[in-house]
């Protein structure tokens, strides 16, 4: 058996695991994998019915419940659209930002946020551009599996430097997409969900913050019932904990 075949053999178990994960998380398109879980949790199946009849507010609670239950990015996205249709901008932005964090590579949440006049600052996925395509989504998993196998095998069989070099090349190919998604998913976004005031450390109001304002959470721990956040213009302020939603 050649060394190349052995390296491919090492990647097979990892690829099999990745494939199984893809199947479990609903990789297959054309079906609605959300519906069974919705039924399991006792929610009605026709979540979009009231919305399609012009009553988005009635669908909003159902869609939010489904999003919290499944934590899928498209469920958060739909809940965000329903909230926007119902006029709840704070909730809409919060749901769309959550959808973005669940799938940074998807353009739909970013586009919807732009449509709501709350554009996200340039994300790492957008900065990577075409360079990020090979490493985005499941392709990144496969490429990193192949790269890892080749590098691992080539590092031990150093006489076969070709394997090592090819593996490093594959890793370089996938790295921009993988690390861009990782960075975007870790940005601590928070959303102001009610019209409120930004406060300074003494509790005095600094400026009004309308619902739907996007901020970055500066500290995970609240302070005196308030959350320390950084506004997009760089100012650090405090927001009442009940008025800001983290993701």
């Amino acid at each position: 058996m050649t060394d190349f075949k052995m390296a491919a053999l090492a990647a097979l178990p990892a690829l099999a695991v990745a494939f199984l994960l893809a199947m479990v998380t609903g990789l297959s398109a054309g079906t609605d994998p959300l519906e069974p879980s919705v039924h399991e949790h006792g929610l009605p199946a026709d979540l979009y019915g009231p919305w399609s009849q012009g009553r988005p507010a009635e669908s909003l609670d159902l869609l939010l419940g489904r999003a919290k239950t499944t934590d899928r990015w498209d469920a958060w996205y739909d809940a965000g659209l329903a909230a926007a249709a119902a006029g709840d901008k704070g909730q809409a932005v919060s749901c769309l930002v959550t959808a973005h964090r669940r799938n940074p590579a998807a353009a739909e949440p970013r586009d919807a946020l732009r449509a709501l006049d709350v554009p996200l600052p340039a994300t790492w996925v957008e900065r990577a551009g075409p360079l990020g395509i090979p490493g985005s989504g499941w392709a990144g998993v496969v490429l990193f599996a192949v790269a890892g196998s080749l590098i691992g095998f080539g590092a031990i069989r150093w006489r076969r430097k070709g394997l090592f070099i090819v593996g490093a090349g594959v890793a370089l190919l996938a790295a921009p997409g993988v690390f861009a998604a990782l960075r975007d998913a870790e940005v601590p976004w928070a959303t102001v969900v009610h019209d409120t005031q930004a406060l300074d450390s003494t509790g005095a109001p600094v400026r009004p913050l309308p619902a739907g304002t996007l901020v970055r959470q500066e500290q995970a721990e609240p302070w005196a019932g308030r959350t320390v956040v950084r506004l997009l213009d760089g100012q650090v302020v405090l927001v009442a904990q009940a008025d800001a939603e983290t993701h």
Partner: protein
Amino acid sequence: MVIAWQRWAWAVTLVVLALSAIPAAEVVLNLPDPLIPNVQMPGDIQVTDAPSTVVNITFPSIPGMTIDVPDEGGSVQTTVVNGKATTTRGIPLLVTARVLGLNHIPPITLHLKDGSILQTQALDVRVEHGNPNLAGEAYAEAAFQPPAIVPGEPAKLVYRIYLKRGNVESVGIEPPAGAILLGERQVARGRSYDKDGGQWAVITLTWPLTIATPGEYRVEGQQDFHIAVGDGFFDTRVQRGRVPVAPTVLLVKPLPTEGRPDDFTGLIGPLAFTAELDRPHISTGEGVELRMTVAGRQVDLLKAPALALPAGVQAYPKDDGKSADRNSRIFRWDLVPSAAGEVVIPAVSIPYFDPETRIYRRAESKAVTLTVVPGRTRELTITAPVPPPGTAPPDTSASPAQPAGMPHQGRLAAPLRGIAKQPPSPHLPLLVGGACLAAGGLLAGLRLLLLRRPAANRGLALTRALAVGDLPAASLALASLRPALTTASEQAAAKALDEAIDRARFGGQALTDPTHWLRELENLR
């Protein structure tokens, strides 16, 4: 003049130091409590760090009481703590009291050898008849305190074991079935006296408990004890005994129906109820935490009180706060007023049954006031270019494909309805890549270990060299094969082949057919 003052200062300092070096004497009168009438009982006077020896004691005249000093006895005990020695002398006394009730003993004066005196503190002692139940070797009794309660009211089961001597290994009774223990069992040890003034050891066990169902609850049993008897170290044996425990009954009466509030949840008093805000002042749009703390027993039975909030204040219930102990509970809400002004959160009350007065009462929190100050706001005007005449109006339909209701928003896409592909976790590529890295390295290592290249086949090399007529190479291959020759036939074949090769190389003869020699040698490695 200055020198004279300095001398005085030195003298005063030396006197103070000398006085501080004198140990402070202490005298304590110890007597049994209570004294048994007409029984001579032992006591003593403990003198600690006396400056000199006690030579005489003057007892005050006490009506109905006689105090004697026996001829023998007394003790001296010296302890050293941190280099400081303390000497305590015990002077034995024999006290006989004749008058029941509280007897006052004035200070007793001790005369020392150096002429100084010491006095005890005045002391009040009780003179009572001894416990008439104490007879034989042991006695046990149990009692409920109080003997009658209502369901949920706390009570105590007090169990006393009196022992003339010896000890116990087990407890003869348990709380009645159905009792709810409210805490750990407590054990205390003490002394008691029989009617003749004999001293007994008492072990008191106390169970704090309550009962949830009306009825009569009886406790009875038997108490085992053991006594060490014998004359000496090698003649000691254990004698076991048993005494009955007189039955005792706890009466649990039903709660009265008269005056019972509709919202009564079974709480038994006393109950304390407080309300507080985490901040008294907030800005418009901010939230504030309202905490209501209920302190009492069985507060787990309590539901969150209903708040009667003024209009414009939204309450969001939160999880219970951390309370300091199990007998308190903290209910919390986030209150968000919608407008500036004074917000008064009205008082809330909780009904409970007061076991002392046997009536229902209400614990009421005080009303709290929240001041909401207006935040600084600024009017913003958003202008947009006017669309040219004839342009279609923006689509404001409320269908899922184009939601409506958001001013200044662009066109939103249609919902995905759950058909989107789910991406892997952003960390999954790193995890899979790392796993494959390890697997690849492992496989390469295994291959290095298991699939080693076999050693060169020297016999085959010899055969190939002869086949192509390369005699020098054949000679070298044969020479390298010599260490592998183990049998006589192999060695003979090698020697014959070597001679044939030499003859062919250096004697000008044709090489003899080596086939039969090679049969012996070609398989050697």
